[in-house]
């Protein structure tokens, strides 16, 4: 048993260390205001304070801390993307994740499980090979494997050739991991707060204050605050907040649903994804099967649940794992995803001076949390985007340029 627990156990009469900070009144001036107290916003605040010496930072969150998509995602981390720019970006994210518990002094429970993207058609085999080749070229561990190798990694899968959608192969990505998603946000929040960052929850931004084309502050439900630089990182509300700042985005906002089973003794190690069947599943350290599929069929800002989502998902789950028929779904929920035309995010400068954006993360924002924080902090500190995130500029669409993840993103978890 780790020493820290023993120590805590014996001094139990003493007050516990507070992890999250006590909320302060909103000040009039900050160096940087970050709109959105989710994983990305909190991480950016942390890296600004820790590595750029910018500590007069306020993170403004409309609801409770990290209560948006950070609280709702299914916590899968991987870097087996299709485009070199995507792979490079997520590879950095994974390497940051691996040391994050120590960096933040908070256990984010990074659990490497291996990630299998099943291919049920020869087209999916081709795409898997493409991703594997690009990954390997960039030093990311991925390979196209055969049904026999799949059986070795996940003997529970239905590998029958008589299945409606037989499994022909899989893209195997050993570094694929699951993380305790809330812990990432709490860890960043706690570490940022220790460095002097202010976190304001229940603080809704109601307007962006501009001087000409320059953003200089925000109006909030708790008063007005000014800042030299402003970042919006508000997944699920990106278009709404951008409209306040005076520009529009190439984003459609669509719910993404997920559900968990009742807790079961561990039986499934790897993360299993099937693009053709629109399923992804992993077993959490609590023993629950965490399951999701494709986004809802139409735009919506309401995080309601639907029955048809579960009906479709479970039919496909049983294609893969027929023996789960009597296992029960315990809870379902939804997050609100900002989908871009090319299934790639938007990061960088905006038409408004001093106003930066981090948006369009669709269904895969969680896995980019550390790299986003690090690179957005670099951008805000230097006033211009670093090379790694240059390809993701908002103005790419003006020239009909799209990033090539579109081909491989039918189920992008």
């Amino acid at each position: 048993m780790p020493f820290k627990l023993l120590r805590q156990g014996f001094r139990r009469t003493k007050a516990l260390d507070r992890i999250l900070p006590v909320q302060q009144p909103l000040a009039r001036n900050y160096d940087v205001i970050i709109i959105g107290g989710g994983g990305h916003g909190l991480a950016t605040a942390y890296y600004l304070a820790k590595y750029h010496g910018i500590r007069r930072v306020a993170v403004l969150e409309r609801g409770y801390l990290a209560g948006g998509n950070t609280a709702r995602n299914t916590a899968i981390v991987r870097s087996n993307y299709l485009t070199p720019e995507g792979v490079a970006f997520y590879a950095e994210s994974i390497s940051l994740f691996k040391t994050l518990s120590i960096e933040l002094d908070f256990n984010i429970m990074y659990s490497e499980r291996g990630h299998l993207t099943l291919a049920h058609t020869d087209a999916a085999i081709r795409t898997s090979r493409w991703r594997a080749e690009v990954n390997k070229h960039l030093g990311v561990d991925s390979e196209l494997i055969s049904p026999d190798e799949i059986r070795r990694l996940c003997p529970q899968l239905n590998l029958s050739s008589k299945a409606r959608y037989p499994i022909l192969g899989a893209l195997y990505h050993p570094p694929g991991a699951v993380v305790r998603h809330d812990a990432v946000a709490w860890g960043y929040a706690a570490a940022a707060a220790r460095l002097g960052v202010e976190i304001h929850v229940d603080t809704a931004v109601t307007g962006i204050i501009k001087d000409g084309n320059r953003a200089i502050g925000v109006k909030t439900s708790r008063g007005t605050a000014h800042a030299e630089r402003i970042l919006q990182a508000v997944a699920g509300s990106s278009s709404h907040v951008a409209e306040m700042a005076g520009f529009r985005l190439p984003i459609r906002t669509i719910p993404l649903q997920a559900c968990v089973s009742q807790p079961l003794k561990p039986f499934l190690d790897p993360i299993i994804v099937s693009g053709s069947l629109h399923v992804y599943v992993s077993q959490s350290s609590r023993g629950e099967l965490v399951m999701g599929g494709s986004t809802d069929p139409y735009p919506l800002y309401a995080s309601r649940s639907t029955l048809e989502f579960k009906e479709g998902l479970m039919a496909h789950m049983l294609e893969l794992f027929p023996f789960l028929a009597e296992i029960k779904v315990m809870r379902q929920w939804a997050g609100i995803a900002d989908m871009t035309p090319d299934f790639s995010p938007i990061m960088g400068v905006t038409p408004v001076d001093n106003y930066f954006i981090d948006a369009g993360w669709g269904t895969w924002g969680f896995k980019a949390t550390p790299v986003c924080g690090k690179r957005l902090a670099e951008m805000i500190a230097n006033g211009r985007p670093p090379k790694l995130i240059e390809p993701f500029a908002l103005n790419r669409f003006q020239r009909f340029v799209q990033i090539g993840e579109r081909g491989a993103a039918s189920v992008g978890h």
Partner: protein
Amino acid sequence: MKILNCPLNGPRNISEFACLGEVKTVPPPDAGTADWANFVFTERNAAGLVREWWIHIATNYVFIVDRDTLTEETIRTYRVNDPLLSQSLGPGGTK
């Protein structure tokens, strides 16, 4: 499961329909690249009232829907040539 009132088929489960995107003003054919890119990519994506193209999949009937994306309420549906469409969508809405 929401019910959507199709102007041709009446109220049906929303799973019988597909959303085809926002109703936008089409630029003139000789508009520049930036205007066309704006038309193709940029969305109003309002949290609130939106006007969209929808299709009833089984009958391939295309029509227009006003709905509220915060409450998932359908405000009204229209045939494509409904004269009422010339009215604006309400606060913050575009035609």
